[in-house]
């Protein structure tokens, strides 16, 4: 009589295989992290840290005015952060440079990273950032103050019904041990 339900050896072998498979899947979860990073880099999704280049056929839409508001926040670190100019009126396609100022109010050296956020959210697609302090971390000595520029162009492809946009930056402290921001 064929007794298939009686082989402890086969069971243990199966257990081992499934256990190894479990470990592989655990590692796979971690492997998703570099995978997504690479994926976003290759496809150009989520490009926060690299400057854009202005295309040759960039043009200025002189007919149209856009109000741009600048917002600056420091979250959880003893810095003052403001933009030296709270708003601007520009034509789509016209490059503009805005200055920001950060001050470290504490007695220790602190590294911070600015993270941008836009309103409307899809502004990101039409915003070409040529230069930004947010491309790298900023390290401030105790009581140090620094002025930094952002240079950008808003592409005339921005939908016509939009006439006010907001560009906001928030500085976060770089956690200890994180020295280089990943690209």
């Amino acid at each position: 009589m064929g007794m298939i339900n009686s082989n402890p050896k086969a069971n243990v072998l199966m257990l081992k295989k499934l256990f190894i498979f479990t470990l592989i899947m655990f590692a796979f979860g971690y492997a998703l992290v570099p995978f997504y990073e690479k994926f976003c880099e290759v496809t150009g999704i989520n490009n926060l840290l690299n400057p854009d280049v202005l295309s040759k056929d960039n043009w200025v839409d002189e007919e149209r005015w856009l109000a741009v508001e600048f917002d600056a926040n420091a979250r959880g670190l003893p810095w003052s952060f403001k933009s030296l100019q709270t708003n601007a009126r520009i034509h789509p396609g016209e490059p503009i440079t805005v200055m920001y100022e950060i001050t470290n109010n504490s007695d220790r050296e602190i590294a911070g990273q600015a993270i941008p956020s836009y309103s409307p959210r899809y502004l990101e697609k039409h915003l070409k950032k040529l230069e930004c302090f947010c491309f790298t971390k900023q390290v401030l000595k105790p009581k140090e103050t620094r002025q930094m520029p952002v240079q950008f162009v808003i592409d005339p492809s921005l939908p016509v019904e939009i006439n006010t946009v907001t560009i906001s930056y928030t500085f976060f402290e770089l956690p200890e041990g994180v020295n280089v921001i990943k690209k």
Partner: protein
Amino acid sequence: MAAVHGDAHGHEHDDHHPSGIMRWITTTNHKDIGTMYLWFSFAMFLVGGTLAMGIRAELFQPGIQILEPELFNQFTTLHGLIMVFGAIMPAFVGFANWQVPLMIGAPDMAFARMNNWSFWLLPVAATLLVSSFFVPGGAAAGGWTFYPPLSTQGGLGVDLMIFSVHILGASSIMGSINIITTILNMRAPGMTLMKMPMFVWTWLITAYLLVLVMPVLAGVVTMLLTDRHFGTSFFNAAGGGDPVMFQHIFWFFGHPEVYIMILPSFGIVSEVIPTFSRKPLFGYSSMVYATASIAILSCVVWAHHMFTAGMPTVGQLFFMYATMLIAVPTGVKVFNWTATMWRGSMSFETPMLFAIGFIFLFVIGGFSGVICAIVPIDIQVQDTYYVIAHFHYVLVSGSLFALFAGAYYWIPKWTGRMYNETLGKWHFWLSMFFFNLTFFVQHFLGLAGMPRRIPDYNLQFADFNMISSIGAFGFGLTQLLFLYIMISCIRSGEKAPQMPWDGATTLEWTHLPTPAPYHSFEKPPIVK
């Protein structure tokens, strides 16, 4: 032959010695462990249900009456976590423990000792989770999906939740390894894969899904933990990480997870419907293939939970169409169940009522799922009560109703006693009525824009919320009736006949006495 007996007796001997509480702590018997899983999950169901009553009490009227917003958020978070990981999943594992060996003619689970461990991890995890209400800062409050940054910022409660998820994950993985090995290696002679009862098939596929995605969940909560305490920045934007990546990894687990909670209920319904239609299951092999395709597809649709998180249009289109594709094999199943009933000599005992209720309401949940999958509509309804309605139709009237169907169907086999049929029918009709009262109106609330996970709401939503809360209280009370029916069945139910359901054809009914003896199939049956 000798080998079988030697092996089987190996773990029986210690079953006989301890008595009282030690019997339960040390048991390696699949029936004991199945029973413990079922009671545990029912207890968790009551805890999660109590939290739900709290949520619905707060939402009974606009304004804040009972739960401060912080506590409200803890209630919704733990309600979700407890129902998913504490109630529904362990309940299905309980059914697998009882039924898989009985239905394939095996003497026990493959790894009886590990089976005991996987159960006893659960109360530990549940204690951690529930006790987190009482630590400073309270329980986790960022939703059962624990997205960062809320979950990287929360207090000790979040750490307890993370440990608890680790332990629950370990338990599920051990359980699945056991189930897979039992099904693949321990079937009775003649029980080929394509002769296995549907319940066993659905569990085999579910167990594979579990070993595929539970480790990924364990990984993602570990990343949260190291982000919180050890300076990594997986999900911390300031440190170069990405909070949206959490969502991608979480839902890589999360969507298969929803099928982990529904496939075994497909299995139960596929046993109940043929029995009470007195006809074999229509389209058995297409059922097997449909289950497998659902499982495979479920791994490539995760980002439908993230349509509003920012995604290129091609991505949205891919995930939209892939999601809709799942409706095809699901439709095959619904067709087959209906075709099984077609011209059957049907009778409507409680298990059958719950199974038919399942089909009706699960289809509604499936349709609202397809509607959610349509990107422009989802952008409107995501994070509203519409999504709440959708997944309660698939989880409560889906998974839970199937669990009820299975409990009524197999309780005579487990205990040798019959439940009270009249009360069972009351349980069904009251559940049916109150369930729809609670959740149907939530579709309207969601379409009108009422957000989920918020303790207060605009006056325009007041009437539907009051209706929904009344339904919820009714549904909650009705489940105490289920508890009463089960306890009185076990204690003093009428003696069950050998074959309470004349249409049943699976091994546990045809080859074993009622109630099933403590040790069954020590000598495997021959399946023709």
